[in-house]
Structures are given as C-alpha cells and as structure tokens.
C-alpha cells in the first residue's frame, strides 16, 4: 500500500502538487461513510468484510474524484486560487462526511464503528479480504506506472517537449490524477484519511535527495514507502508490548497510521540532512574541504613569492593568511607530511620540488586570470589582484586551455610579472 502511494507521490511531487493528496484524502471521507451505508442492505455475516471493503473503496473513489472536479471547477470558472480551492474542498467534504457520520452513529452504530478505522488507519485489523482488494488496487497502480513509464518521465520534466513528441499530455494528466485518487483510496485504510498525504510526500522528498534520475526516484521512493510501512507496523506492535508490560490498564494499540507517518517523516529528514549529494551535511563538508584546499594553495603561493628556494619563517607566512595560528600550524604540518613543504628548522618552511610545481601552476592560473580580467572584462589594474584571488583554485585545465588560447599564450600579467609557462621546470 505504502509502495503504491510512494510511487504516485513522486509523480505528484514533480508536478508541485503535493498538497493535492491532502485535499483528496479528506474528500474521500464522505464516500467512505456513504458507501458503507448504501451497501448495508447487502451485508450478511458471511460477506461482511468483502462488501464493506468494496463499498468503502468505491465510495472513497467517487467522492475523491468529485472533489478533484470541484477543485478544477473552482479554479477555472470561479477564479479561486489553487490553495484556497484545496483547503475549501478539504474541509467542506470532510465536514459533509462528518455530518452524515454523526447521523449514522446512532442509526447504524455497528457500521459507524467500522468507519472509524479509516480516520487514522488500522492496518492491524485488516483481514485477508482487505489485503486482496488493496493489493489488487496497488498492483494496478504499479502496473500503470511501469507501463506508462516513458510518458510519465517525459511529462514530468518538460511538458512542452513531451507534447512535441506526440504524447497526449491531457490523457496522461488524467491518468496521473486517476492514480492519485486510487492511491488515496488504497492508503486510507492503512494510514487513515487525515495522514494519508504524508505517504505521498515524504518518500518522494526523501528519494529526491538521493538521485536525479526519474526511474531511480520511483524505485527509491517505493523502497522508502515499503520500509516505512513495515517499520511503522513493527514499532507500533513493539511499543504496544512495551507499554502493556508496564501498565495493566493498557488496552489500546499504539496507532499504526501515525507510526508509519512518523517513520517516513524521520527518514525524510535524515535524507535531507545526510544524502550524499544534496544533503545539508555533505554540502557543508564539501564547502569546508574546498576552503581547506584554498588555504593550502595560498600558503604555497606565499612561499613561492618569497623566492622558491628560501626558507620562510612561520610568522611571515601567518601574516598573509587570515586564519588562526593553530589551524595554520596544522595545515603546514599536513603539507610537510605530504612532501609539498619542508620543515627545515623549527618554524621555518620551504617548498619542495613538488611543492614548487604546484605553486607555479597556481601562480600561472592566477596571472592568466588577472590578464583576462584586465583586458577583456575591463577591471582596473589595481583591483585585479584581489578579484583573481579565488579564481585560481577552481580553474580546470579546460578553462586554462581556453584562457591560454584567448590571451595568445602571454608571458606577462598586468603587473608585468612573468607568467610561469605550462611546463614549468626549474
């Protein structure tokens, strides 16, 4: 169930319509109520489970679909904005459902009790019948996503291009909306009307942090959905056991629906923080690493400027770097352990051969860039140096090639300093 919801969730997320699920899941509630009531004459003790499950699914589908139509109608004909339409349909339909339910509470009390699980979901009381029905519906969703994979991918990333390929955008849109409604119907039994939308959003968001590839998005989201489902169930049962041990009066199960949502939410937040490419932690780490490299190269450059053969005192180097002395000593230590720099006497450093090569390369890039800025971009000569300070650290060899060609392999920079040639050797 969660798998199907996660798949559909990816589609909705890419269309920036994540809150549609929220609105439609609440809109399905009156359908649940009405469906059960309408089907009540057909219920016998033998087929009760089946009839109710079918009635609920059908009713939910109908009213969610009506809700969808109303949202569209409000936007197109009445000029209501999307957020207001979603919010109004959400609360209005839910209110209507509640009103009917409040009556049913007294007239068909047993039936009313059967409807309650749909508010927050109650996977624990799902029977085989439920599993079969929802399993089939989930399978339908899965199949449709697989079959229409190419079209969905095209439309999600560029609608106009997809249309130009001959894909019928309108039909696919309708199919996606159909799948959303179906996913909502499937999900409300496990997670409940109120929290359903979380299963559409959280796995998709989490998956997005790990990949840019459409297919991978679907797969990862599906996996996260599955894991949330299992873990949520497991935790609620375990928690239940834990509490009932300590408390003799504990008769209620930890609500599973919210548990599943919580797991999904936590996984989502972890993904946002830790994912390898886009995660916050990694971003910060990479920025720090880059800073470190910049400082290393700046130190080498400083040593170069004082004459590549000489030994330079620590204090002199420190004057040109804007970092704490501890950090400076640490970096110098690392540089010398990697043989870029020699620690000849205590507090005195000089470049090794390798160090000199690296420093020459940096200086070359810096001066090329200065020349470019002065001649082509029109920066005043006085300010060129400061502007070029960062550039040399990130110029790749392709850019260096381009620069050399553009500037016709120069020998001197704007300050009339010699530019080390590409194959600098002492």
């Amino acid at each position: 169930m969660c798998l199907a919801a996660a798949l559909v969730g990816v589609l909705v997320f890419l269309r920036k319509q994540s809150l549609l699920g929220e609105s439609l899941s609440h809109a399905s509630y009156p359908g649940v109520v009405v469906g059960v009531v309408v089907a009540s004459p057909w219920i016998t003790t033998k087929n009760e489970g089946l009839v109710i499950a079918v009635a609920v699914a059908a009713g939910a589908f109908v009213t969610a679909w009506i809700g969808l139509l109303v949202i569209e109608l409000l936007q197109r004909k009445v000029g209501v904005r999307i957020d207001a339409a979603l919010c109004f349909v959400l609360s209005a339909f839910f209110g209507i459902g509640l009103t009917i339910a409040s009556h049913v509470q007294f007239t068909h009390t047993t039936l009313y009790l059967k409807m309650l699980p749909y508010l927050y979901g109650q996977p624990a009381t799902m029977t085989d019948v439920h599993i079969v029905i929802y399993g089939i519906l989930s399978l339908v969703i899965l199949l449709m996503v697989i079959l229409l994979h190419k079209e969905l991918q095209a439309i999600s990333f560029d609608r106009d291009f997809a249309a130009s390929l001959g894909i019928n955008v309108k039909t696919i849109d309708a199919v996606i909306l159909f799948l959303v409604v179906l996913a909502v119907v499937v999900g409300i039994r496990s997670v409940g009307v109120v929290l359903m939308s979380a299963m559409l959003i959280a796995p998709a968001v989490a998956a997005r942090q790990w990949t840019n590839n459409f297919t991978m998005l679907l797969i990862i989201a599906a996996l996260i959905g599955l894991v949330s489902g299992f873990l949520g169930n497991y935790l609620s049962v375990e928690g239940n056991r834990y509490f009932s041990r300590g408390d003799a009066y504990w008769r209620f199960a930890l609500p599973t629906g919210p548990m599943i949502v919580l797991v999904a939410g936590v996984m989502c937040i972890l993904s946002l923080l830790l994912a390898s490419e886009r995660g916050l932690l990694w971003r910060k780490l990479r920025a720090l690493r880059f800073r470190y490299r910049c400082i290393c190269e700046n130190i080498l450059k400083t040593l170069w400027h004082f004459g590549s053969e000489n030994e330079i005192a620590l204090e002199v180097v420190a004057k040109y770097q804007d970092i704490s002395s501890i950090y400076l000593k640490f970096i110098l230590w690392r540089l010398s352990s990697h043989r870029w720099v020699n620690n000849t006497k205590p507090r005195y450093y000089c470049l090794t051969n390798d160090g000199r090569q690296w420093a020459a390369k940096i200086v070359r890039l810096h001066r090329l860039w200065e020349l470019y800025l002065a001649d082509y971009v029109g920066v005043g000569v006085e300010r060129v140096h400061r502007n070029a300070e960062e550039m040399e650290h990130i110029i790749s060899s392709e850019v260096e090639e381009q620069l050399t060609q553009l500037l016709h392999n120069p020998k001197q920079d704007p300050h009339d300093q010699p530019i080390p040639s590409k194959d600098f050797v002492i």
Partner: protein
Amino acid sequence: MAEEISALQVFQLTVNYDKTPVLWDITLEVPSGVLVGIIGPNGAGKTTFLKAALGLLQPLSGKMTFFGNPLSKVRQRVAYVPQRATVDWDFPITVKDLVLMGRYGRLGVLRWPRKADWAAAYHYLEMVGMAQYGHRQISQLSGGQQQRVFIARALMEEADLYFMDEPFAGIDVASEKTIVELLHRLKEQGKTVCTVHHDLNTVESYFDWVMVLNIRLVACGPVEEVFNATTLNAAYGKSYALFGEALQRSRRKMKGF
C-alpha cells in the same frame, strides 16, 4: 559650501542567487539629479541590482550608501516601483487605495491616512492622468494604466531617489509618453531616477546616464561617453561567457556542490 553628495554609492557589491553568481564586485557612483538607465542582457542581474541596493536581497558582500547614508537612515528619501507582475492585480482595492499605500512608510504604525494624504493621492493621480479612475478596482486596469498608478504611488512618497524596475515593459504608447514626461519633470526638480530598461533604442533619448551591467559592471557614466559600440560589445559579446562560467564554478565550490 554645497558638497556634491552622490545619490547612490555602491562598493564591491556581490550577489548570489541560489548557486549562480548574478552580480560580481559592482562598484559605482551615481550623482544626484540624473536619469539613469540600467541596461544589460537578460539574466545580467539588473533587477537583482535594484533589489540588492534596496535591501530586498542579502548580498554576499558590498556596501551601499544613499546620499551618504545607509538605507535605514534615509528610507523616506528613497522610493521603489517594482515590476508590475510581482503584484496580484485581483487584490480587492481601488486605485486610490493603492496610491495611498505610498504614504504608509511615512505614516508609521498606528496612524491612519488623513485628509491631506487623500488630497495628495488625487493630486498625483492627476499628474499621471488617472484622476478619473480613483474608484476603479485595480483588476480593471490595462497594463499602461497599472504602471501609471504604480508611479503615482511612488510619487506619493515624495522621495529624492527613485528606483523603477522595467516601467516601460508592455505598456501602450500614450502611457509611455506620460511616464517619460514625468521623469523629466522629476529631473527638473533635482530628483534622481534609476530605471531598469530593456529597449536599447530609446536609451539615448530617455536617459542622461547609463549603467551597463552583465554580472560585472561594464560601464557607468554619462550617456554620451558610455553608450557606444565598445561597451555594448563588452556587455553582450562572447568573451564574457568564460567569465560567467568560471564564476559559476567558483560559487558552486563555495557552497559545496
């Protein structure tokens, strides 16, 4: 002894937008009493420059002064006309309501507009030729009418320095004429106006100063000196592409991407 204080002084302004650099190391000075046209190719950062100068965006670095002071000290001397598209024209207010908003900054919290403010609103509406539209809903205005009303609102602020973002985009000829005449009237009163402009053909006739932007400041000075083929080539030409690309890489590395 009257000291010539520049209306606007910008020092080493650098702005990032998401991960790409949009403005890099802009330093310039604009004297008071001139009409400045800000031009450059698409994506050059013209609107960003306006927003950064006015404190709507957080720049990476840079210092801006207005008449020698930071913006917070001279807010009442600076007026802003944003792009028309940034506003929801279905908002339930009338034209006069909109123009009156120009006084809100001056009024401060817990004070209500008085008769004098209403009179001023009508006065400025008349100046832009929209006096008879006072009671209309803003949703019923055409593009040119919307722009004129926006300008009337800015005039309400009775500032010394005006910033306008693409006021001539998508409006009818009559409105454009009205606005240009208004700009010249402002200049006669010694006011300074900085306008983001998109049409290179009209630069020389509308403005007496020009600021050419393309991520970097290409040039800033009187129209006769600055508005020529060399500068335009530098702004719109190809050798610039390398610069932008390198900047992008730099910013990405800084952010850890």
